[in-house]
Structure formats: C-alpha cells, structure tokens
C-alpha cells in the first residue's frame, strides 16, 4: 500500500518535473519567435513541410465529416420540417467544434509526430550540437521556425477543413437529399455569427496549435538519442497532443459558449 502510494507520488513528481521543463522550454523559445520572420525562407520551408504534409488528409477528412453532418442533420431536422436548417447546423458544428478539434487531432498524428521524429533524429545524429558548434543557435534556427509554422498553419487548415465540410454538407443535403439551395445558404448566413462562431473557432485553433507545437518539439528535444527513444517520443506526442487538445477544447468551450 505504502509502496504503491510512493510509486504514485514518484510518478506524479516526475510528471511535474517534465511539465516544468516543458514550461522552461516554451519560455526559452519566446524570445526567438520573431527570428523566423527575419529569415522568411526558413519559415516558409516549415510552413510548406507541415502544411503540405497535412493538406490531403485535411481535405479528405473535411469533406467526409461534412457529408456525415449533412446526412445526420437532415435525418433529425426533417422530422421537424426544418431541413433547410441543415446548412446552419453543419456550419456551426464545424466552425465551433469539429473544424478546430478534428484538424488539430489529424495534425498531431500527421505532422506533430513527424516533427518529434525529426528533432529526435537531429539530436541523436548530433546535428543540433553541430549547429551550436557552428555558432548557430538551434532554438532560433530549428525550433522557432517550426513553432511559428505550426501556429500559422493549424488555424488555416482548420478553416480549410471547415470550408470543405460545408461543401460536403451542401453536396449531401442539396445535391442528394433535395434541400432547397437558396434556403440552405440564407439560413446559414443568417445564423452564423462572426464573433461567436468564426473568431472563437479560430482562437481555439490557435490554442490547440500552440499546445501541439510545444508537445511535438519538446518530446523531440527530450527523446533519448536512440531509435527506441525516438519512437517512444513520437508515440507520446500523439497521445499527449490528442488528449491535450480534447481537454483544452472542453475548457475553451466552457469559457466561450457559456
């Protein structure tokens, strides 16, 4: 019993210590965040890497999620004779929840894990040490451009996901189930609020992006420089990244929509 408590205590302490290190890591990153805008090519390369890597999966997932929303929404609403509202429902679910959340989850699996592996390999092959020896600061040169790229790319991807989702909902509702075209759009534009829905969704996305970027880069930085070390670290990125996004989503939703 005592031993179990002690083990739990030790585990808790080591978690806390890791959280502390992650905090320090983020703190060390802050002063370097302007640097990628000076070296715009470093930044564009990372935007391209993380963005293009995730674009196909975001486009496909967005379309399918929107189609499902259209179908489910129609089935519920048709009973109340208000199937024109399916556009509103699709758009609101996507803007407020599914766009930011699903995008962040997909991004963690696709680009976040790749970032962790990349940084872990750079460390284990001494590339980060070599940069320091060449008097180039890895925080500015490696970490900052990746962090900024993720924070820029994820909200954009979420908007793309949302747009494709609305298109998917439209195709199903109007194209297949025969909802009136004009009513679909006019209901949607009448009920979607710029501040409440669009801006809040983007804010969520930015918060998720910061979380995902910190987790992915920090796990890469902390990975033991061996192949198992790096592979465990990518797994941890996916697990902690995804769970964190879901938990943050709850907190943000409670703050924004209550």
């Amino acid at each position, binding site marked *: 019993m005592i031993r179990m408590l002690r083990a739990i205590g030790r585990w808790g302490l080591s978690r806390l210590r890791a959280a502390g290190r992650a905090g320090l890591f983020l703190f060390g990153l802050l002063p370097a965040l302007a640097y990628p805008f000076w070296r715009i090519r470093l930044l564009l390369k990372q935007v391209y890497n993380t963005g293009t890597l995730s674009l196909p999966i975001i486009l496909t997932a967005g379309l399918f999620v929107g189609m499902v929303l259209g179908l489910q929404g129609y089935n519920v609403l048709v009973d109340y004779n208000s199937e024109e509202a399916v556009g509103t429902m699709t758009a609101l679910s996507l803007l407020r929840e599914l766009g930011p959340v699903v995008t962040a989850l997909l991004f963690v699996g696709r680009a976040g894990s790749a970032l962790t592996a990349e940084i872990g*390999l*750079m460390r284990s*092959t*001494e*590339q980060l*040490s*070599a*940069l*320091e*020896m*060449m*008097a*180039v*600061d890895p925080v500015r040169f490696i970490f900052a451009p990746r962090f900024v790229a993720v924070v820029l790319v994820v909200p954009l991807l979420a908007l793309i996901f949302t747009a494709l989702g609305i298109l998917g909902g439209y195709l199903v509702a109007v194209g297949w189930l025969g909802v009136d075209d004009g009513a679909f759009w006019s209901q949607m534009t009448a009920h979607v609020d710029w501040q409440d829905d669009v801006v809040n969704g983007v804010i969520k996305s930015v918060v998720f992006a910061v979380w995902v970027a910190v987790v992915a880069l920090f796990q890469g930085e902390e990975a033991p420089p061996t192949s198992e070390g790096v592979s465990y670290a990518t797994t941890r990125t996916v697990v902690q990244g995804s769970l964190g996004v879901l938990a943050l989503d709850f907190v943000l939703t409670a703050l924004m929509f209550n």
Partner: protein
Amino acid sequence: MQPHIEIEHLTFRRGERIIFDDLSLIIPRGQVTAVMGPSGTGKTTLLKLIAGQLRPESGRVLVDGEDVHRLSRRALFELRRRMGMLFQSGALLTDLNVFDNVAFPLREHTRLSEAAIERIVLMKLQAVGLRGARHLMPSELSGGMARRVALARAIALDPAMVLYDEPFVGQDPITMGVLLKLIEKLNHSLGLTSVVVSHDVEEVLSIAHQVYVLSEGRVVAQGNVEAVRNSDDPYVRQFLGGLPDGPVPFHYPAPPFREELGL
C-alpha cells in the same frame, strides 16, 4: 610552444558519476595533440567542455587565454567560429546537399557573395577530395565520405583549431589512411591546432606530436609518442597493447565461479 587550450583542475559529473576529477592538460598551438582513452571515459564530454557546450562543476578551460565558461553567449559564439569540430557521426544537416552543408557556416556568418562562397566551398571540397560529390545528399554518402564533408565544413571558416571526435571509428583501412593524411595535411599546411580524441592507438600515435592517456577521469600518461609508448604504468601498457586482462579486468565483478557452480 605557447598553449592554445589550457584545462585547469577540471571536475565534471554526470549525476553521481564523476567523469573528470581535477583534470589538467595543455594543448599546444599548431600541433596534433591526441587524447586517448577507452569508450566511456569522457572524450566526447571533454571536447564539449572545451567548446563550452557543457559546464564544468569546477575548474576552468582557457582557449586563447579566455575562460570559455565565463564568456557571454555572444562571445562564446564568436569563439566557436574560430573552432572547427568534427563529430563522430559527421552530423551533416540531412536536408542540405554536400555543397550547401559546407556553405552553411559561410552563409550564416559572412556576407560573401554567392560567387565567393562557391569558390571557397569548392576549394574546401577539393582539399578533402570530394569536389565531384557536391550534389549528393548526406544519405547518399558512405561513412567515410560523410566525415570528409564534415571536415570540409569544419574548416569552411578557416578556424585556428579543429577538434576531432573519434575520426577513425568504424572506417575501413583505406578511409582511415585518407583521414589520417587529411588531418596531417591540414595541420601542416594551415598550421591548425588539432585535438584528436580516439581509442585507435596506432593510427593516432602515427600523427600525434603530443599524447594524453585518460583513465577514470585522470591523466595517466602524457608526453610525446616515445614517452607514452615507454610508459611503465600498467594501465597504459594494457591500453596501448590492447591486452585483454590487466588493471582493467576481463571479468565484470562476480562471485568466484566455483562457488556459483556449487562446487
């Protein structure tokens, strides 16, 4: 001979384990100094301490008379530009080709035109015999070639010293010969101070002017090649001779075998 690097009473630990215990050594300017010792003695650690990537618990490291660990970050980076380091794995940037890897320090630290950079890079690649490989990516290079490219990169900014971390490990005899020749040539023609950290005894002794043998955080032999070869320290004899048993026992500590067999 005036010292280039002076290490004074250096103590460094990893957790509980003492890696260096009051270590002092001097690396003279313009010579090849070998630092030898078995794997895990802390040779890489020593190079990182010299370059200011790690901080000692006590003692100091002077490079050109400056205390490395008291420099501001800016001054430390300034110092590192005068230092080249050849990493054990080469540590080339994997997303850049050979040319861009060698050009990297020039692009980061100078305002030279692309034409001037190209001239310097080709000159450095010529020196290591890989001008023809300039378009290859690091993944397309053999271990020996990667190390030679890394060497070209290490000397791109014309440093006054180069630190070599285990340059011969895992190389075939021909590549080893090539690397030995290169280290010697650079030392001669450019007057570089060279610190070669290694456990490949014969290779290192064939080019070193000055040798230190480390064991358990201390210097156990030092001097020119002759002096170290004739050392009568039993540890040094075991290390240089590659003898399986001696002060470093063949057996990991264990109870007597008879006892364990129940005899």
